[in-house]
C-alpha cells in the first residue's frame, strides 16, 4: 500500500468518527434541550406519585362509650384478567382463600376484554393475605376501611348503613355523614423502580371524621328489642315499635323496631324492614290522643278536674254515632274520670265545648302535624286535617285519636311535655360530637305546671284503676294511657280486625325520669293496648328503672 492510499484511508476514518460524534452530539443536544421537559416529566411520573390518604370515618358510640358503628381495616382484591394465565386455577385459589364461589369468579377472571375487575371489595385482611401469599400473577390488593357494626342487631334501623364506599346511605350514618367523614389528605412520594417509597416530598394533611356519642344506652336498647320481639311473637303481630326517652332532656335512651335485622347485612334486608318506623311511619293513636283535648280544656279554664258531665253511652255528632268502649247507662263523670276511664263520649263532649278552632290549635301546640325536629332523616310530620277540611263529624273522631295520624316520636314528645311539668323538649339521638358541647335541644312550654300536674294525676289513675293496670311495676307509681285504634280499611272506613295497640306512660309518676311508648301493629288474639302493649311497657320500665337505679317517688 502506498503512503497516499494509507493517508486517504486514515482521513476517511477520521471523517467517519467525526460524523458519528457530531450526530451523537446533535442527538444529545436534541434530547437535553428540545426534549428536556417532556422527558423530565416522564421520569418524574415514573418515580413520583401522588397518593390520596383517605380519612378514617368517625366512630358512633352509645352514651357509655360502647361502639355501635366503627371503621375496620379491610382489603379489596382486584384482578387484571389479561395478566391471569390460568383463570380456572385462579378462581379455585380465590374460592379456597376468600370463600367465594369459583363458578361466579371464573367468568370475571377469564374476560380478557377487561383490564380491571373487582374480585371482592372490603374482604377480610387475613383471607386476602392468604390469597396474596399464593403470588398469583394478575391479582392486586389495596387497603380500604369497612364499616362494621359490632353489636349487629342492636339499633340497626337507627344507625343505618355506610356503604361500600364508606358513605352514609341511611339512618344516622346518613344524617351525620359530613361529621363522620372528615377530609382526604394527599402525599407526593418518590419511589424506586420496585415501587418502594424513598421519600415524601410533599404532603397535605387531611382530617379524620369526628366521633359521635349518642343518647342511646346499649343495655336499655337491647332489652327493649328483646321485649318487642317477645311481644310481637306472642301476639303474632305484624310489627312493634318502642321508644324510651328521658323527659328532662329529650335524650332518647332506646328506639327500636321489630322485626329487626343485623346492621351488617343491611343490603340484604327489605326496605320495609330497614326503616326506623318509630320516626318515619304514622299510625292512628286512638285513646292516647285524648290528653290533647283534656289538656287544652284544662289550660283554657273551660273545665277543671272535678267538672261534672252527664254522659249517655252514645251521642250523635253530625252523621256519626260516638259511643264508649264498654256499654253502660247514662252516667255522671268528672273530667278526671273521663280521661282515666277513657270515655269517648266524654272527650268528644269536651271537644265540642272547646270548639273546632281551639281543638285544632291544641293539636298543633302539642307538635302534631309537623316534624319534631329529631336528628334523624326522613321524619314524617304525620297527617293532620287542615281546619278547612274538617267536616261536621271530624270533631267526633279526631279528639279520640281517629282520623289523625301521628308518629311514635311525636306521641312520646307530647307525653314528655306532660311528664316534664308542661315543657316539651325536642327529642334527639345525638348527645355530643367529639369533645364538643352537649347538644342543647329546643324547649317549649306547652301547658302550665298546674295543668300538667292535673293530667298526670288522671293518667296515674289509668294505671292504678283503669285500663292500664298491666303497666304497673312493683314499688313504683306509673302514669300512662292505653290506646286501641282500628286501622283504616282503605275504603274510607275502619277495619274490624286490624288494630294498633299502644301504651305510653312515664315513671316515677311524680318526678318522671322515663317516658316509654310501645306500639304493636295488628296483634292477634287480643287487640287492646292494656292487654298487648301495657305488659311490654312494664317489662321495659322495670328493667330501665333497676338499670339506671331510679328510686320510687
Amino acid at each position, binding site marked *: 500500500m502506498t503512503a497516499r492510499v494509507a493517508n486517504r484511508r486514515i482521513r476517511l476514518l477520521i471523517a467517519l468518527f467525526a460524523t458519528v460524534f457530531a450526530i451523537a452530539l446533535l442527538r444529545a443536544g436534541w434530547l437535553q434541550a428540545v426534549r428536556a421537559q417532556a422527558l423530565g416529566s416522564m421520569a418524574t411520573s415514573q418515580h413520583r406519585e401522588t397518593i390520596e390518604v383517605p380519612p378514617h370515618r368517625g366512630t358512633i358510640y352509645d352514651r357509655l362509650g360502647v361502639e355501635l358503628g366503627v371503621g375496620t381495616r379491610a382489603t379489596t382484591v382486584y384482578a387484571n384478567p389479561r395478566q391471569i394465565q390460568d383463570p380456572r386455577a385462579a378462581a379455585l385459589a380465590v374460592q379456597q382463600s376468600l370463600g367465594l364461589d369459583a363458578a361466579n369468579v371464573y367468568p370475571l377472571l377469564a374476560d380478557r376484554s377487561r383490564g380491571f375487575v373487582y374480585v371482592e371489595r372490603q374482604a377480610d385482611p387475613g383471607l386476602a393475605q392468604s390469597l396474596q401469599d399464593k403470588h398469583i400473577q394478575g391479582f392486586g390488593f389495596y387497603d380500604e376501611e369497612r364499616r362494621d357494626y359490632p353489636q*349487629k342487631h342492636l339499633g340497626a334501623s337507627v344507625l343505618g348503613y355506610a356503604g361500600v364506599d364508606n358513605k352514609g346511605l341511611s339512618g344516622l350514618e346518613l344524617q351525620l355523614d359530613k361529621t363522620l367523614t372528615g377530609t382526604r389528605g394527599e402525599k407526593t412520594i418518590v419511589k424506586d423502580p420496585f415501587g418502594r417509597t424513598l421519600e415524601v416530598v410533599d404532603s397535605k394533611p387531611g382530617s379524620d371524621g369526628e366521633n359521635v356519642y349518642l343518647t342511646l344506652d346499649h343495655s336499655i336498647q337491647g332489652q327493649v328489642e328483646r321485649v318487642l320481639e317477645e311481644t310481637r311473637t306472642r301476639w303474632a303481630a305484624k310489627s312493634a315499635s318502642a321508644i324510651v326517652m328521658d323527659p328532662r332532656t329529650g335524650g332518647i335512651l332506646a328506639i327500636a323496631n321489630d322485626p329487626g335485622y343485623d346492621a351488617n347485612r343491611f343490603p340484604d334486608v327489605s326496605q320495609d324492614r330497614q326503616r326506623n318506623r318509630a320516626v318515619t311511619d304514622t299510625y292512628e293513636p286512638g285513646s292516647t290522643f285524648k290528653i290533647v283535648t283534656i289538656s287544652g280544656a284544662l289550660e283554657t279554664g273551660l273545665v277543671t278536674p272535678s267538672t261534672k258531665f252527664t254522659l249517655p253511652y252514645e251521642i250523635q255528632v253530625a252523621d256519626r254515632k260516638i259511643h264508649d268502649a264498654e256499654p253502660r247507662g247514662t252516667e255522671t263523670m268528672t273530667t278526671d274520670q273521663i280521661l282515666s276511664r277513657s270515655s269517648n263520649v266524654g272527650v268528644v263532649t269536651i271537644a265540642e265545648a272547646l270548639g273546632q278552632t281551639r281543638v285544632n290549635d291544641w293539636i298543633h301546640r302539642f307538635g302534631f302535624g309537623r316534624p319534631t325536629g329529631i336528628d334523624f332523616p326522613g321524619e314524617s310530620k304525620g297527617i293532620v286535617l287542615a281546619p278547612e277540611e274538617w267536616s261536621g263529624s271530624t270533631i267526633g273522631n279526631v279528639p279520640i285519636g281517629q282520623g289523625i295520624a301521628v308518629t311514635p316520636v311525636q306521641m312520646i314528645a307530647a307525653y314528655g311535655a306532660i311528664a316534664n311539668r308542661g315543657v316539651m323538649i325536642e327529642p334527639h339521638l345525638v348527645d355530643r360530637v367529639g369533645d364538643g358541647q352537649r347538644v342543647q335541644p329546643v324547649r317549649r312550654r306547652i301547658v302550665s305546671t298546674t295543668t300538667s300536674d292535673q293530667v298526670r294525676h288522671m293518667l296515674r289513675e289509668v294505671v292504678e284503676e283503669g285500663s292500664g293496670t298491666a303497666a304497673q311495676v312493683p314499688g313504683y307509681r306509673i302514669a300512662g294511657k292505653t290506646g286501641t285504634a282500628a286501622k283504616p280499611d282503605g275504603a274510607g272506613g275502619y277495619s274490624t280486625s286490624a288494630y294498633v295497640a299502644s301504651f305510653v306512660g312515664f315513671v316515677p309518676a311524680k318526678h318522671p325520669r322515663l317516658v316509654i311508648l310501645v306500639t304493636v301493629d295488628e296483634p292477634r288474639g287480643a287487640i287492646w293496648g292494656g292487654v298487648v302493649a301495657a305488659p311490654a311497657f312494664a317489662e321495659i320500665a322495670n328493667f330501665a328503672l333497676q338499670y339506671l337505679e331510679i328510686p320510687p317517688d
Partner: protein
Amino acid sequence: MAALLAGIVALNVAVLRLNMQVEQLDNQRDELVSKRENIQSQLTSTAAAGRIEEIATKTLHLGTPASTTYLELKHRGD
C-alpha cells in the same frame, strides 16, 4: 475533591435509607392502628349483650333469671 464527592453521595444515600425506614415505620404504625381497631371491634362484638344472652340460653341452656325488683328506701335522719 473525590473524597468530597464520595462524602456527598454517601450522605444522600444515608438520607434516602432513613426516609425509607421512616416510611416503613409509618406504614407499620398505620397497620398496627388498624389492627387495634379491628380487635376493639371484635371485642365489642364478642361482649355484646345479645350474643352473650344467645349463648347462655341456646348453647349453655341456662334459664332466664326471675325478675327481681330492688327498691332503694330513703334514709330517715333520726
